[in-house]
């Protein structure tokens, strides 16, 4: 029997609200602490307590972060999904189950290891037995995988920071679980974790927290929000962190936080803040964007800065509210009625969540428009590794704001919407300044901001707006390109697919293909994206949605002669992307093209 070192997937089946998340994070963090490249995915239901939850932990020396294609070790804690969980397993899987469920495990083809977890937990604390039972599978895994004691201790103290009793009880449970496994199981494990040298700078963090910190370093001073999964933790992190990081000279708050009555109001507040010279932001998910769409058109047409952070969940409608997808992209890019086009920043790592978190405000002020941050549940609510956030390398850019009469006098022929610099961006003044006041409006307006229905005036305004946003292309984050010498197959992708692309790339190269990749980080797309397509023979646009939304945007905007080069591969089932699924689809798509 050969050993699989740092190369396996564990699936933990529990019910939500039973405290299993703590146990799962202890496993994740203790392996991370040992320097093992590891990723964790929480597949949770839209529910407070009692519905099935799965947590997938993958260890991979190759650095693969997607959930693996196979489950090597299955933890069974949930009666409700018991048989289904069992039926899914491949022969040879290690099954660790809680005997106190009194349910049979009818898989003779697997390695079946039982433990009376609830009964044992009751000896520590009858009241806490349900919660503590989870720590016994942590002990079981610690035994089988040989997880380092010290790493577990550190992960436990991180999880239960400061709560001495909880640390003591949980450590006891883990140690009892470990002991039980050693005494009762005659199983020589083929799976093993082995310590690797850990970069002492790295730590795990959720994308939403990184976004929140980015916004704080970006100078946010008005946060409006309406709770919605999976974006609420962006707002809650801002609320939690801001008093620790910022304070006014008189001790007052430097950021107003308003929990709005709905998403429409949240967007309206961002608009008001931007109009009055502040840095306003809201965070939401797809249903919220739908509600905000009317205001998004007003941002665009009245040219008001603001930031809306969309953490995508599976749509349409209420959809799968606790699952992931890249299904909002085309909606964001052209949100609201009439002709519109919006800047969309697309982070693919937690570092970029932080970076785009602060940059979004600069772009909004520079281009006097609404800027979207576009993440998803996978990046936002799962924990990813970073070596630490980097401080903004440029001062805040407040854009073209006239703050004094001298500045005003220096501009010949000023008008709020007159393009005096030729870049499509006009100068603005702020309420309260007394400088060239106008009545902002969502109705047609001329270069002075005066109401107009004149066909030529309208046409010229819309043309200038297109020029303005078009001018942003090469000033937005450029795509990240990993290029092979032979420019045969190129893959364009974005966002959280970053966590699966390396594995897809390796799988494809094993079939003899050479693959270059190009990760799009903003819309409207950068000119380097077009160059990438021009230089490759075939280009796949890879997405976590049904219809190929980026593909649709590219097909509309690319020069016609490039269109026969690009092919869409899009798939979404609510789960984080698994490499095998997409690899097979890419191979099929290429075969179809060749035939």
């Amino acid at each position: 029997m050969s050993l699989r070192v740092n190369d396996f997937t564990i699936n933990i089946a529990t019910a939500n609200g039973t405290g299993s998340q703590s146990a799962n994070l202890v496993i994740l963090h203790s392996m991370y602490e040992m320097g093992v490249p590891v990723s964790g995915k929480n597949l949770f239901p839209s529910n407070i307590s009692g519905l099935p939850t799965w947590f997938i932990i993958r260890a991979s020396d190759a650095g693969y972060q997607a959930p693996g294609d196979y489950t090597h070790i299955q933890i069974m804690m949930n009666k409700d999904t018991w048989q289904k969980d069992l039926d899914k397993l491949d022969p040879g899987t290690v099954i660790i189950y809680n005997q106190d469920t009194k349910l049979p495990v009818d898989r003779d083809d697997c390695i079946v290891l039982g433990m009376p977890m609830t009964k044992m937990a009751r000896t520590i604390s009858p009241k806490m037995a349900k919660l503590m039972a989870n720590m016994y599978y942590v002990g079981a895994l610690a035994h089988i995988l040989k997880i380092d004691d010290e790493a577990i201790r550190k992960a436990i103290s991180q999880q239960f920071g400061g709560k001495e009793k909880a640390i003591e009880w949980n450590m006891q449970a883990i140690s009892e679980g470990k002991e039980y496994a050693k005494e009762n199981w005659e199983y020589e494990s083929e799976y093993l974790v082995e310590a690797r040298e850990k970069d002492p700078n790295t730590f795990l963090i959720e994308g939403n927290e990184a976004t929140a910190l980015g916004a704080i370093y970006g100078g946010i001073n008005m946060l409006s929000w309406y709770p919605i999964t999976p974006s609420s933790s962006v707002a809650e992190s801002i609320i939690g962190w801001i008093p620790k990081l910022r304070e006014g000279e008189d001790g007052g708050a430097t950021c107003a936080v308003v929990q709005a009555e709905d998403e429409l109001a949240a967007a309206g507040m961002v608009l008001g803040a931007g109009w009055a010279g502040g840095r306003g932001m809201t965070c939401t998910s797809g249903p919220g964007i739908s509600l905000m769409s009317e205001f998004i058109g007003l941002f665009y047409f009245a040219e008001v800065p603001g930031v809306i952070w969309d953490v995508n969940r599976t749509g349409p409608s209420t959809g799968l509210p606790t699952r992931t997808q890249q299904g909002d992209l085309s909606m964001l890019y052209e949100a609201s009625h009439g002709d519109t086009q919006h800047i969309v920043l697309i982070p693919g790592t937690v570092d970029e969540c932080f970076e785009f978190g602060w940059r979004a405000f600069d772009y909004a002020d520079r281009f006097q428009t609404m800027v979207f941050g576009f993440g998803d549940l996978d990046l936002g609510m799962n924990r990813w590794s970073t070596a630490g956030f980097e401080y903004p390398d440029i001062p805040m850019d407040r854009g073209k704001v006239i703050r004094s009469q001298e500045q005003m006098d220096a501009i010949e022929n000023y008008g709020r919407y007159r393009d005096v610099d030729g870049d499509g961006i006009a100068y603005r003044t702020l309420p309260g300044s007394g400088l060239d006041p106008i009545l902002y409006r969502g109705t047609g307006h001329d270069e002075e901001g005066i109401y107009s229905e004149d066909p030529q005036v309208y046409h010229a305004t819309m043309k200038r707006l297109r020029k303005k946003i078009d001018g942003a292309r090469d000033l937005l984050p450029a795509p990240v390109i990993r290029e092979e010498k032979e420019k045969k197959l190129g893959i364009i992708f974005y966002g959280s697919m970053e966590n699966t692309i390396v594995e897809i790339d390796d799988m494809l190269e094993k079939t003899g293909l050479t693959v270059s990749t190009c990760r799009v980080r903003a819309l409207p797309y950068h000119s380097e994206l077009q160059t990438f397509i021009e230089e490759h023979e075939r280009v796949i646009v890879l997405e976590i949605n049904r219809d190929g939304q980026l593909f649709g945007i590219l097909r509309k905007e690319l020069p016609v002669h490039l269109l026969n080069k690009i092919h869409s591969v899009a798939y979404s089932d609510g789960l984080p992307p698994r490499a095998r699924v997409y690899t097979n689809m890419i191979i099929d798509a290429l075969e179809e093209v060749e035939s």
Partner: protein
Amino acid sequence: MSILKLNVIDLEKSEYKGGKSSLCPGCGHDQISNVIIQAAWENGIKPEGIAKMSGIGCSSKTPAYFLGKSHGFNTVHGRMPSVTTGANMVNKDLSFLAVSGDGDTASIGIGQFIHAIRRNLDMVYIIENNGVYGLTKGQYSATVEKGSKKKKGAMNEQAPIDLCAMAVNLGCSFVARSFSGSKKQLTALLRAAMSHKGMAIIDVISPCVTFANNDESYKSYNYVKANDEVLHIVDYIPHFSPIEAVEVPAGEFKEIKLFDGSTLRLETVASEHNPNDPVEALRAIHEADREGRHVTGLLYYNPDKKTATETLGLTNTPLMALPDSQLRPSEESLEILNAGFRAN
């Protein structure tokens, strides 16, 4: 050369005027615009310190017709309160003067209206209430009284939403009702609203001369004039010239001290109204309603409610004026933050 009349900050009234109105001749809204110009001028408010806010509809077009030296925002239908909230959060020193209609406030924007009251947003909120949608050619709005009938079409059978009663129930800090044809009353109430800190609502019955000025309409000029239940005579006494203002009335009166030091004097007409009591305010509204009358005056007043920005404990400097150094934490703070995450 004639000597021009100046206000307390040495500005002529013309400094408070706006563009030419495009509303129907005789529209109640134009009378209200004139009262806004008059009140802002008489109160000596700097035009640049005012932010004019509105939604969508005939009423919401009017900010173009007054205070041309103030910034303003004609936003989207019913959502003006949220835009005002955002602007107020980052610049609490602006004086927000909002104009809305009954379609804007009682239907599409009723949620935002309610929540602005709940937060006690520091603003003056004027509802130009005519019971019909003018711009879309005269459909009933939600404030039209049961039994009222507009010029064309059937009588309205649904009960109205009384915005003042709703505001009182929500604890709005200043609630008044007036009539666009009562210039003196409306001017005094608006001046008082401008001197108030917190949310001040004035529901102004403002007849629609085109679609609902027939005698069967409860919001027509003739009907309102004949059925105006005046709660009290109102006189505004500004803090900067307290003596010259008005003669002391012969009968009973009550004085209300406003935030900026000005006074609103309420002279009793029939029976005394105590505007600090929400129950009395609601009784006045419901009794008038029962008799098909419109009660006008200061219905309710509560000076002790914290405003939205006070509740949040913001810095004294408006947030939009904070230096970047107070908005972006230091480089060192990020190093500490990273180190903290690493240590965990």
